[in-house]
């Protein structure tokens, strides 16, 4: 079960993610995130909620090293990312699985190739993972579409493929930006259960979503972002498993 991320002590080396007084703005625009301080304990599961434009995607980008804060300190797996060597950053990224909001599937690769990509980049041999990739794709309902190329996949299929790619390495930290926005209710629950399963295996999960129903039914805490500030919303109701 997750600890209170807002109240966690600063610089706890065990935390997977630690923000201290982090603010962020794009160019000379207003601050999207203001003085955020929170931590995510290993094995925690949180939703990230908030209205459109609140900065959920920006917060995730800060965590997966796609952008830099305008001020404040971010620690990932205990490392201060501002002082992490450039050569250390790929290693940090390989410990994070990301479901991008715009999916970022590679159109010239089959679904199987897309899903296997992080394993190839990690330097594994195809014989070591081809069975696992096939099994995972089957599990997300793409068993008959492994050969298909992303332009021929339906919106929900693309989303499931992006999720498969994000979880295929069993990352220590999984970030998902609206992972269930294009799938039906049943598939949303199925995907949610995949995240729960990963969480049970030890992964820290942070899912940005607008799906209030899923958040409410999940029984998981939510980090609510609004007006650049973050607040913790305690779980409501029984845990959905």
């Amino acid at each position, binding site marked *: 079960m997750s600890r209170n991320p807002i109240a966690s002590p600063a610089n706890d080396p065990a935390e997977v993610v630690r923000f201290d007084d982090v603010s962020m703005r794009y160019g000379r625009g207003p601050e999207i995130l203001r003085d955020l301080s929170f931590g995510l304990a290993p094995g925690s599961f949180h939703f990230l909620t908030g209205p459109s434009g609140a900065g959920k995607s920006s917060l995730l980008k800060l965590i*997966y*090293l*796609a*952008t*830099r804060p305008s001020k404040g300190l971010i620690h990932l797996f205990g490392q201060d990312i501002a002082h992490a060597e*450039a*050569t250390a*950053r*790929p*290693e940090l*990224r*390989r410990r994070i699985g*990301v479901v*991008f909001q715009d999916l*970022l*599937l*590679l*159109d*010239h*690769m*089959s679904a*199987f*190739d897309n899903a*296997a*990509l*992080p394993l*190839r*980049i*990690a330097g594994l041999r*195809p014989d070591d993972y*081809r*069975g696992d*990739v*096939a099994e995972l794709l*089957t599990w997300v309902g793409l*068993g*008959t*579409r*492994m*050969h298909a190329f992303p332009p021929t996949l339906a919106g929900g299929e693309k989303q499931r493929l992006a999720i498969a*790619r994000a979880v295929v390495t069993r990352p220590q930290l999984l970030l998902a930006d609206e992972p269930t926005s294009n799938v039906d209710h049943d598939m949303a629950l199925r995907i949610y259960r995949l995240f729960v399963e990963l969480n049970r295996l030890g992964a820290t999960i942070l899912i940005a979503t607008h799906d209030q129903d899923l958040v409410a039914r999940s029984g998981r805490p939510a980090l609510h972002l609004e007006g650049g500030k973050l607040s913790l919303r305690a779980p409501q109701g029984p845990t959905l498993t």
Partner: protein
Amino acid sequence: MSEMFDPARWRPAPFLPESETRDGALVFVVAVLCFLACMTAIVVIAGDRAAHGWSGQLAEQATVIVRPRPGETPDAAAAAAAETLAGVQGVAEVRALEPEKAYELVKPWLGDVADVEDLPVPRLVAVTLDKKRPATANELKTALKGAGVDGIVDDHALWLEDVRRAARITRGMGTVIFLLIASAAAAAVAFATRAGLAAQRDVVEVLHFTGAEDRYISQLFQVRFARAAAVAGLIGAGGAMLAGAILRLMGGSQGLTPALPIAWGDLLAVVPCPLMAAGVAALAARWTSLGLIREMQ
């Protein structure tokens, strides 16, 4: 499980698309510029040789205008001058020009004169100097004076300086034009590479965020664009070599014209082109991909 897909037989796809519609345009642009750069190189080399030839030919020759002494026939004076000059060190060959040759030389100024033979046209002696140690005009004058021959030595010094200046300008202009075209070709390779790579931004992003090393991503693009530029360079250089060979064959042993004496060896100037195009493309791809990656951090 898919009937059409067997994971056991799966082989990883290349990280980059094997062919892009832009690749054809990239190869075409680079090939045309490489062709122009190579043709310029061939023409500059041939032009340089021609310029050397002009000044060399003038420097190796002198003309002596012989004036017969009283009671001496022009033929005898010319023969005496030729005999004297042949014995001077630094003279390779001496030839007294026939009277008809001298008449032909003055004809443009005098027009058709009926009794041209009666005119006091001086006799000319053409002197070919030794290439290694040519005799100077003073040495020729001293020898003539010593032999009692009245003659004016023209070592073409007046013309030689003009021709040498013209050769220097021709050579300089050719080099500048070649450098401009080569720079334009290099810039076009770089811009085309950047444009091609910008179209692959998604691939860079995905590889980057899934943990690929920056250097590894950059190498993928370097190899990809260097290969495309090398093919384009090969096409451009091959085209220039073919065009040069046609010009050489059309002109016989002297090349297209004496002013542009293309030699077979000149065609080898195009050989480094594919390598240079590949090198420029690889550098451009490296800088652009690392720049794109930096923007993502």
